[in-house]
């Protein structure tokens, strides 16, 4: 993970940046003036950074939470896979059109057990971001994901999906190749998969693009992520007819992990290091792994048919309505 001064800071993280700058100052002074001991000052500042990181995540608005989920230093799918597991073997292609680089997948060993990992992948720099299409998959990405899920099912291996997308790609070719159909097919097939399926929102969980690899036995959300039907920006533009209302839209959509857990739409919140996953990749991967393993072990207690029935029932209960009685 990037360390200071290569870190990037969001607006509300600026107080942390200032503390880092003070440490820099102290270190420079220490070099110049060997007689005075600055180590205590520095360690106090380091404590202050940790305190600030904690304080900031405690008081985030929903919109700030969205910003954190998009933090440029936040770990992406591949990072988690490599940190959590051994021998990751990436597999490519949908066997039909092409290899979609916005969607990755492959086998790896998680605590010695073979697991199929699938997830959207965002790029880590400008060039890679374009190559990964900002984590917005095309139909072939969803079809590649389904191919890999079927492969895992055939060999009786659990599936873990890591979701991080601003949405399925809204391009002309995506429409020609059936973006809607590809997502619909995945949702339908995922409900019927015979193996345990664990889905985790690790960053952005936008709409059908997220749900296209998001149907499973256990749905987890990392602490500083969001998951809903539309991005706050697009919601603002459609419902408020303005791009200016994204903060309000983020509030109204109740899209945070806490909200989603309280509605029963996700099963668990995976805690993140103080200040967010981008502060400590090792720790965030360790926490994620712990929750994934727990979920897989739990689901191993059921037969394939029981899991399928439970999935249908789980999603079947979602919704709210009034029922008039004659």
């Amino acid at each position, binding site marked *: 993970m990037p360390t200071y001064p290569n870190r990037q800071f969001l607006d509300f993280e600026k107080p942390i940046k200032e503390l880092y700058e003070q440490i820099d100052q102290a270190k420079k002074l220490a070099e110049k003036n060997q007689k005075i001991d600055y180590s205590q000052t520095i360690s106090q500042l380091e404590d202050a950074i940790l305190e600030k990181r904690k304080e900031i995540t405690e008081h985030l608005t929903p919109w700030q939470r969205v910003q954190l989920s998009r933090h440029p230093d936040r770990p992406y799918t591949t990072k988690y896979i490599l940190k959590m597991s051994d021998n990751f073997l990436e597999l490519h292609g949908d066997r039909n059109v092409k290899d979609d680089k916005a969607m990755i997948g492959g086998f790896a060993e998680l605590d010695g057990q073979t697991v199929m990992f699938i997830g959207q992948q965002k790029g880590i720099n400008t060039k890679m971001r374009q190559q990964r299409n900002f984590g917005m998959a095309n139909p072939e990405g969803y079809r590649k994901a389904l191919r890999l899920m079927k492969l895992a099912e055939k060999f009786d291996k659990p599936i873990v999906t890591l979701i991080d997308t601003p949405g399925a790609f809204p391009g002309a070719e*995506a429409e020609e190749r*059936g973006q809607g159909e590809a997502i619909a*097919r995945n949702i*339908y097939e995922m*409900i019927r998969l015979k193996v345990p399926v664990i889905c985790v929102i690790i960053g952005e969980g936008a709409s*059908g693009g997220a*749900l296209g690899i*998001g149907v499973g036995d256990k749905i987890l959300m990392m602490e500083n992520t969001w998951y809903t*039907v539309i991005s706050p920006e697009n919601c603002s533009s459609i419902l408020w007819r303005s791009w200016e209302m994204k903060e309000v839209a983020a509030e109204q959509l109740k899209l945070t992990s806490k909200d989603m857990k309280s509605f029963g739409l996700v099963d668990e919140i995976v805690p993140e290091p103080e200040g967010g996953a981008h502060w400590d990749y090792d720790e965030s991967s360790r926490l994620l792994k712990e929750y994934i393993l727990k979920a897989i072990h739990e689901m191993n207690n059921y037969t394939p048919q029981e899991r399928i029935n439970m999935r249908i029932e789980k999603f079947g209960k979602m919704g709210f309505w009034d029922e008039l009685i004659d």
Partner: protein
Amino acid sequence: MNKENNKDPKEPQEDFFETSLSGEEDAMNKDSAQRQKWYKRLRKGITTSTSDKKEMPEGLWTKCPECNYICTTTELKENLFVCPKCNYHHRIGSLEYFDILFDNKTYTELFDNIRSKDFLSFTDLKPYDKRLEEIENKTGLTDSLRVGTGKVNDIEMVIACMDFAFIGGSLGSVMGEKFSRAIDYCIAHHLPYIVISKSGGARMMESAFSLMQLAKTSGKLSQLSDAKLPFISVLTDPTFGGITASFGMLGDLNIAEPGALIGFAGPRVIKETIKKDLPEGFQRSEFLLEHGFLDFIVDRKNLKDKLAQIARFFKN
């Protein structure tokens, strides 16, 4: 052909289905809301002589948005709301489809006691509960999906049909629940399931709950499939977003009315993404047929016979 015909009438409709999801009146399909009103009048038997100009309410005459042909509402209705001149299929609601499809216009409506609820206290330009109340009063509809069961050419089936006039036919908890119960009904009575879609997509005011309806409905379809009962998806103008990304594209057969705009992302969003104009006919039924996503296109006048024919194929 006169000069006016050269205008592209599809232009204003393009973002219309997207903004209709906001449920705001000025963004609503005035056409379909208006037709809903006439239709209520026609059903109640209130007809006004076309010569009686003073009494004539707005909307007794209708202009085809495709070719500008003007005819009376009655003439249009007799032609199943299809332009007699150019075959443009006007957007119609569930009551109209049910009258067209069910024998002797006879059917039993199911699950009409399920109503939307503002569980999240969602407020955009207006609170969601107020919006629901207003739209219910204005359209006489109770939500965006109506389920009916009856005979189509003597074959018993369940038909669920969307109403675009109700917040852009949006998919929310009520549509998901009615859809699911309709499947339970089909399984219990061993009936084929027909869904006529016409929707801008998911209902944003229900946030993630609306998204989860995609998984909920797909799960139920899996049960219908296990019961070996056919599911026919009929796509009409317009069908977008969460509908195409779930049951809309999951029919044992996917069929569509001619010229219907069908897609995942809306044309406006795509245009902004690719920064190019979209080709003529993009996302129309014919385009989807060409790209392999539809089994066939069916004119509204043949829809009833086709549905009955399909049901027979699966049954015999």
